[in-house]
């Protein structure tokens, strides 16, 4: 790989990282508004408020960057970066077209998992270092939730890796067949639910429950650092949606000519992202004990059952 190619790949990944979360964010503004019988942003940019998030970004840049006096200065200031950068790494690994990914490594499935698990540390660092009781409780709830929902995600992905016989996202997508839609369905459901929980999105937003914890671990953040946390949440939606689209919905497999494969991947990913937004509007927040109950009594057994089913299928040569 030449230096030019490496630079181009890095720039492409960064561009995707900056554009796709904005698209999802704007979609959330408008789709959520229409689901609730509102219009959503209408003025910024002229046409149906398309520039609202750009305007928000400009606003965040102008705000004062405050570090509370009692806070642990370094950890507090580092936390947004720890939350954000791993999702950039994860997004760079997702294949969008046969042979096209910003970074193509043999063990990309495990690398995506490892990267997102590092990203979770950002919330915990923010929660502890803010020296604020709301932040601390938010961080505690986030830690409890992340530990419980990490397991179903790993098990569901292990089932797909077993079915495709590889740890590479590109190879797994290549070996996808429509049969997987049925065969891997329980694992797919488990992954989608656990991914929403891992991102701490409603209905699993106990860690940032605004009615009781202000903004959870992010309470003390202002300006650009707060915006980075928001960006990492939307980048997380993009990563999880694209993962779901490539592994369970077949990525670039589709009826149109093969050259349009990347369009299929993005389209499927966007539909999954819309589903994540829809879930937010449709369900009320789960209580902490309901949340843990769902993970340990439903998702983990279901994922283990899926793993067993996949193992039997692979041995029998389905």
């Amino acid at each position, binding site marked *: 790989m030449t230096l030019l190619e490496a630079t181009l790949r890095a720039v492409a990944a960064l561009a995707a990282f900056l554009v796709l979360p904005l698209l999802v964010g704007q979609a959330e503004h408008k789709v959520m508004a229409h689901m609730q019988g509102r219009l959503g942003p209408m003025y910024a940019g002229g046409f149906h408020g398309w520039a609202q998030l750009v305007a928000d970004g400009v606003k965040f840049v102008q705000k004062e960057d405050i570090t509370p006096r009692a806070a642990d200065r370094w*950890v507090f200031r580092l936390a947004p970066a720890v939350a954000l950068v791993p999702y950039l790494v994860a997004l760079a690994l997702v294949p969008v077209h046969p042979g096209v990914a910003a970074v193509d490594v043999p*063990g990309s499935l*495990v690398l995506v998992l*490892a990267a997102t*698990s*590092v990203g979770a540390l950002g919330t915990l660092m923010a929660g*502890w270092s803010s020296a604020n009781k709301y932040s601390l409780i938010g961080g505690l709830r986030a830690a409890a939730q992340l*530990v419980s929902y990490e397991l179903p995600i790993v098990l569901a992905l292990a089932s797909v890796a077993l079915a495709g016989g590889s*740890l590479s996202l590109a190879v797994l997508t290549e070996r996808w067949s429509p049969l997987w839609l049925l065969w891997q369905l329980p694992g797919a459901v488990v992954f989608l639910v656990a991914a929403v929980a891992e991102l701490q999105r409603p209905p699993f937003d106990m860690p940032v429950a605004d009615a009781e914890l202000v903004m959870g671990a992010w309470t003390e953040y202002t300006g650009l650092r707060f915006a980075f946390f928001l960006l990492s949440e939307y980048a997380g939606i993009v990563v999880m949606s694209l993962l779901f689209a490539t592994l369970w919905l077949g990525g670039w497999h589709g009826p149109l000519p093969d050259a349009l494969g990347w369009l299929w991947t993005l389209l499927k990913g966007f539909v999954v992202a819309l589903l994540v937004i829809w879930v937010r509007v449709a369900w009320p927040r789960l209580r902490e004990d309901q949340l843990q109950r769902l993970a340990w009594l439903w998702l983990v057994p279901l994922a283990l059952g899926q793993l067993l089913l996949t193992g039997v299928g692979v041995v029998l040569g389905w």
Partner: protein
Amino acid sequence: MTALDTAFTASGVLAVLGGLFAVTTRHVVHAALWLVVALLGVAGSLLVLGAELVALVLVLVYVGAVVVLVLFALMLTRAPIGPDVAHAAGRWRATGAGLLGLATAGLLATALVPLADGTVERADVTTTQVAGQLFGTWVWPFELLSLLLLAALVGALAVARGDRAVDGATAP
């Protein structure tokens, strides 16, 4: 010095520095975060040497689950912002721990340094090889370890739940 040597040295230095800061800092939460740095350094070294799966699983399990649990436990207890003087080890204990650490490092160095010939070689370890070793050669130790962990888990539950009858007697 090849690029491989440089990458290996960099991750090695990262691991050693992270480990040193983890044991010397007076801030408990900082110690957990330095542990993350040390683990990432070790994972980087493994990655350079070609053990891809082991490196990534190390990050996934230790950073993603173990350190998260450590931070959870620290946040549950009183983990102060700033140096923790209540749990400061005395001078004798610190010296003893330092000597023990030096002795372990020396033992490892005398065993391992003669094996190295100064160059970093990449041995591509495939996932199939790791799985074959883990579930073939080493399957009994592996299963024994999981039994040990299960016993620890059951023990922790028993301790945490306490004696129901006693609880009932003392409840108002």
